[in-house]
């Protein structure tokens, strides 16, 4: 009976990576010198599970590597070894290394054995040196060192297997045993049929065959023997080891020069392919807490009850009286509530606590502090705030960038801090919380803050602004997000290459969010990221243009106003500007843009929806505002293609499709009117 254990691999990897996270955070929390026993225990347990799991699933390199870590942790646990900064750092490195090894095993790419060997060497060094008694060391060390050596020059096993005549009668099946052997390595089977009688004399219950098996694998002899354990007494059985003869191997190599080369290439070629595969595996599955699933099941139960309640009413329409009408209305109200709750529950399945994104920061702060000789304390609040999985995946990198910036440029070195009368330890705060249908993530540091004059000087130097321009604070900070803008006086390898802040903002914008900065020189800087709760649903304002209904994302609407002719100005008789308080904003005539016929001539009677996108404002001229509603975003690209000025579509209550406006795209479109009006003619011509 063999079970295909590969089906459990995914779970194993998932759990192992979780284990690694536990180890990492545990190690970071360890107080050097006086380690908390619980923490060490939890780290040990995680290492132990990974070791056990990897051994079970046949990832022997991983198991072997983890064994070293486990030994060290075990010593820390029973108190025979002190927790030192050195050993913690080595363990952290081992965690990284182990993570790579596991990832490589998962993606079926070759494991970077060199790096593993280096880290393992360090681990063993610590084990060997240590303040514990030398005996345990000397016992353990050879054990770990021995195995790989022994494995190194063993090419496999030569097995002679001759069952006795009656072996089959005891229910033993050689085929099954060979199959098991084949799982241990490459198996070559030669059968000897010389004993086989002619068909008439053949007794199907007797065994006449004998085999010579060659197993190319460096497994232990015990494992091979184990397979034959049951038939030991019923066969002639002999195992010999095939030694790898170094010169002989060379000879083979020479003769088959091409073959061995060919063997090498796939290994190197496999690497990039493997890294591609990683991208895919990342978002393949999602872990959902049982509470959420239970809530969902409850909700569906409610829905079924409501449905049957309404169903009972519907059965007889002939004598429909007002009391039933009442009940029907109640039922529909219930249905509406159920549907909404169901929708929310389903959405919640995609939500993950933001701690998934925050978790990597303690380690990053730890590493960077060491590198930069800074002392920083990281505080996080609101780790349980939930965020859509897709948003989470995309917000990770921008967050890393911002935190890295804060560490590198924000927080000063301890001496400077003390001079400035601040505590020696700098603080970086990561806060996440809900605010009006949005998620707010704050990255706050108590570092040096931005020097507005320097930003301005830099901008003038880079010719982003004129030298005599007067800028509001907001505008100055906005400069930080311009491509190629960095105020760092010297570049470090941590950050400050000037790529980044613009990318950060672009990434956040792509998610439908926004980022703001406030800073006070000498006191600190706060970056505030505002993100939508989910990408699948959008708060929209329904607007009417001619007979068409469009949806404008509520987040991009600044205000809506009735057009008054006296506020309309023209530039060169073409671009229309509308005066909104102190601002002149261009008017985008939606019907012209989208080629819709409308009855109304001119601007009179129209409504102007002032929208902001990509830092620019524009007024969309529409006929009517209908209402606000949450809409489910559907992609146009699934079955069609991207359309300029439209970010997607949705289905309205009456089943018709309405397009969702892409405000940024529309503003761009209004500046460079579509040249694609020639498209129809062109493509028809190639048909006609």
């Amino acid at each position: 009976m063999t079970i295909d254990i590969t089906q459990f691999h995914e779970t194993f990897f998932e759990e192992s990576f979780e284990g690694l996270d536990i180890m990492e955070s545990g190690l970071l929390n360890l107080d050097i010198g006086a380690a908390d026993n619980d923490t060490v225990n939890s780290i040990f347990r995680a290492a132990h599970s990974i070791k056990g799991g990897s051994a079970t699933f046949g990832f022997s390199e991983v198991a072997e590597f983890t064994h070293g870590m486990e030994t060290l942790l075990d010593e820390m646990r029973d108190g025979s070894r002190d927790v030192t900064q050195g050993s913690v750092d080595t363990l952290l490195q081992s965690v990284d290394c182990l993570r790579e090894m596991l990832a490589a095993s998962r993606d079926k790419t070759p494991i970077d054995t060199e790096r593993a060997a280096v880290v393992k060497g360090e681990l063993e060094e610590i084990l060997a040196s240590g303040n514990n008694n030398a005996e345990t060391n000397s016992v353990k060390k050879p054990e770990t060192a021995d195995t790989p050596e022994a494995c190194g020059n063993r090419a496999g096993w030569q097995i002679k297997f001759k069952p006795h005549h009656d072996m089959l009668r005891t229910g033993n099946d050689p085929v099954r045993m060979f199959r098991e052997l084949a799982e241990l390595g490459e198996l070559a089977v030669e059968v000897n049929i010389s004993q086989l009688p002619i068909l008439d004399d053949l007794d199907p219950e007797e065994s006449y065959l004998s085999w010579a098996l060659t197993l190319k694998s460096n497994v232990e002899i015990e494992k091979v023997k184990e397979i034959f354990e049951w038939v030991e007494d019923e066969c002639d059985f002999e195992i010999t080891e095939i030694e790898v003869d170094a010169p002989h191997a060379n000879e083979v190599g020479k003769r088959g020069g091409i073959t061995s080369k060919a063997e090498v290439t796939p290994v190197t070629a496999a690497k990039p392919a493997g890294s591609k595969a990683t991208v895919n595996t990342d978002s393949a599955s999602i872990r959902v807490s049982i509470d959420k699933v239970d809530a969902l099941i409850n909700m569906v139960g409610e829905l079924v009850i409501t449905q049957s309640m309404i169903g009972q009413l519907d059965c007889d329409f002939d004598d429909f009286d007002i009391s039933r009408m009442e009940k029907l209305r109640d039922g529909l109200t219930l249905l509406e509530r159920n549907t909404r709750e169901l929708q929310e529950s389903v959405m919640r399945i995609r939500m993950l606590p933001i701690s998934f994104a925050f978790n990597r920061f303690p380690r990053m702060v730890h590493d960077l502090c060491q590198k930069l000789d800074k002392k920083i304390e990281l505080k996080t609040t609101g780790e349980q705030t939930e965020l859509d999985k897709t948003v989470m995946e995309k917000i990770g990198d921008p967050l890393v960038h911002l935190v890295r910036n804060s560490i590198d440029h924000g927080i000063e070195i301890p001496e400077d801090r003390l001079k400035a009368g601040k505590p020696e330890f700098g603080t970086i705060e990561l806060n996440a919380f809900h605010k009006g249908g949005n998620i707010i993530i704050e990255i706050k540091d108590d570092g040096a803050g931005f020097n507005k004059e320097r930003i301005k000087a830099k901008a003038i130097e880079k010719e982003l602004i004129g030298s005599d321009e007067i800028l509001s604070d907001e505008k100055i900070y906005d400069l930080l997000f311009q491509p190629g803008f960095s105020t760092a006086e010297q570049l470090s390898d941590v950050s400050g290459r000037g790529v980044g802040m613009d990318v950060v903002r672009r990434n956040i914008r792509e998610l439908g969010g926004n980022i703001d900065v406030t800073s006070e020189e000498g006191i600190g800087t706060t970056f505030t990221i505002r993100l939508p709760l989910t990408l699948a649903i959008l708060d929209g304002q329904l607007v009417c243009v001619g007979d068409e209904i469009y949806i404008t994302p509520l987040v991009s609407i600044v205000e809506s106003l009735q057009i008054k002719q006296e506020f309309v100005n023209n530039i060169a008789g073409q671009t229309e500007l509308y005066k909104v308080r102190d601002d002149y904003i261009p008017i985008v005539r939606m019907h012209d843009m989208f080629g819709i016929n409308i009855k109304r001539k001119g601007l009179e009677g129209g409504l102007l929806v002032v929208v902001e996108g990509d830092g620019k404002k524009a007024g969309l001229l529409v006929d009517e505002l209908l209402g606000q509603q949450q809409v489910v975003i559907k992609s146009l690209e699934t079955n069609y293609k991207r359309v300029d000025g439209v970010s997607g579509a949705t289905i309205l209550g009456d089943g018709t499709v309405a397009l969702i406006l892409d405000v940024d795209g529309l503003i761009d479109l209004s500046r460079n009117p579509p040249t694609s009006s020639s498209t129809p003619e062109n493509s028809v011509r190639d048909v006609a």
Partner: protein
Amino acid sequence: MSTAQYVDTNTSVDVMTDTDQYLTFILAGEEYGVDILRVQEIKGWDSVTPIPNTPNYIKGVINLRGTIVPIIDLRHRFSLDEIPYGATTVVIVLKVTGENGNRIMGIVVDAVSDVYNVAAEEMKPPPDFGAISIDYVKGLATVEEKMVIVLEIDKLLNSGVMDTSEALPQ
């Protein structure tokens, strides 16, 4: 709104080898055929939501049970005269294979006609005529003395619909 689904083909097809079934439809008096295995469903004409700045043969998009499906007017596509949509006007929803995988699209035609079995050898290559590019025609079949133009829907619906923007010089 009548909806007919042709998911599985008839078992009788198995008897004859190399025979394909085609759903035919009428467009300006001519009969055109599409591979029946590509037909997802046939539905009556209903209003669509126009998409701005697209070629005029793209009527717009409809909601097909939660999926947004673009609708193409084949009369426009073939530069035929426009006629008002009537009771027989139908939308044939097709599965189209393109470079980026499968898409669902609908075509508006005057009326559906019939389902024919056409053996591969009965199909004649299209002559180089002017009306529509031969790229979009798989072949001509004769069924009951009538000519049926069998369309290459992948090419027809992908070209001009999917890649105009790419094909056009900026």
